[in-house]
């Protein structure tokens, strides 16, 4: 089973079209293995990207050096997945 300890989801907000294309370039940086949850659309809409633990620092440096604003939408994805799994299991126990 694939787990996601330390993966974070970053909510990135582009200031302009230039920054939007910088964010889109992340998709082509295969080594970062980022997963776009919410794709690049327009400047008004945030972009949500899941970043594996191993490339977190590189991605954040890439964004910060380009002065691209981001916030951490999900601190540790695995924690949320464990909560979701626990909710399902307890619902099943209640049903039984």
């Amino acid at each position: 089973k694939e787990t996601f300890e330390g993966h974070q989801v970053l909510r990135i907000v582009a200031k302009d079209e230039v920054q939007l294309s910088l964010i889109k370039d992340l998709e082509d940086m295969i080594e970062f293995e980022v997963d776009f949850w919410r794709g690049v659309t327009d400047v008004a809409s945030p972009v949500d990207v899941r970043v594996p633990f191993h490339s977190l620092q590189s991605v954040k440096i890439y964004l910060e050096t380009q002065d691209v604003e981001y916030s951490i939408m999900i601190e540790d994805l695995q924690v949320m997945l464990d909560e979701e799994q626990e909710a399902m299991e307890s619902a099943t126990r209640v049903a039984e």
Partner: protein
Amino acid sequence: PRNTDSFDYSNYHTINEIYSFQDMLVAENPNLVSKIVIGQSYEGRPLNVLKFSTGGTNRPAIWIDTGIHSREWVTQASGTWFAKKIVLDYGHDPTLTAILDKMDIFLQIVTNPDGFYYTHNSNRMWRKTRKPNPGSSCMGVDPNRNWDAGFGGSGASGNPCSETYRGPRANSESEVKSIVDFVNSHRNLKAFLSIHSYSQMLLYPYGYTTTPAKDQAELHSLAKKAITDLASLYGTSYRYGSIINTIYQASGSTVDWTYNQGIKYSYTFELRDTGRYGFILPANQIIPTAKETWLALMAIMDHTFKNPY
């Protein structure tokens, strides 16, 4: 659960639980609900479609599908709730009763069963189908880029490792080809509503070209009505418009193909996350999401019913 009244709609369920829910709903409502298997997934799972019909033969019909991207769990969960809602409201809600007295509704809840099973057992983040790609170690095709509408254009990837990999050719995925065959054999679908999450958007064709759809004005005003009804419940705000103008270029997408088949009322929904959960939307938001979405679905179904073509 022994019946669909005691089924827990406010939690996420496995594929087996959803499939047995479908069989229970059919068994409880033999005069309204039947199950059609339109094909098999790559790994051999049945592609179940619930048919809601009060009679007639090959009546004009409305298609709703959820879960084509497997990790978008709130959509399969909402689809389960929609199925029960149709049964509960027929004979009680005058608008739905009028629709079902003259039209059929087809509802495919688990449109990508292999991917959905995989999200429960191996990788919660899985989006695509699970067919191997010859010559690559990466699996799966994006089933929302595999349709024969602008297939091969930009707005999808040719890399099997990409989340938006279009596949080796249009309809290469049995999960897609089975729906294509169903649409081509039924030939009387009047609306096609494909439900994704997340980001609160209601989208209509086209995604592969900037050329406006010939019914753009009507599709746009109907979308506005639908999202206004949706927002009336909890204030969830949606954006709406054509795929290419509202989000990005997307080639080979479902509703572009269905629209090109003449199914005028072709829409893609992107349900909530209204907060910061993304695909991991807490289960306590399933029913509110389903209820608000139902208002938009009813707006589109009612318009389809009242504007025959």
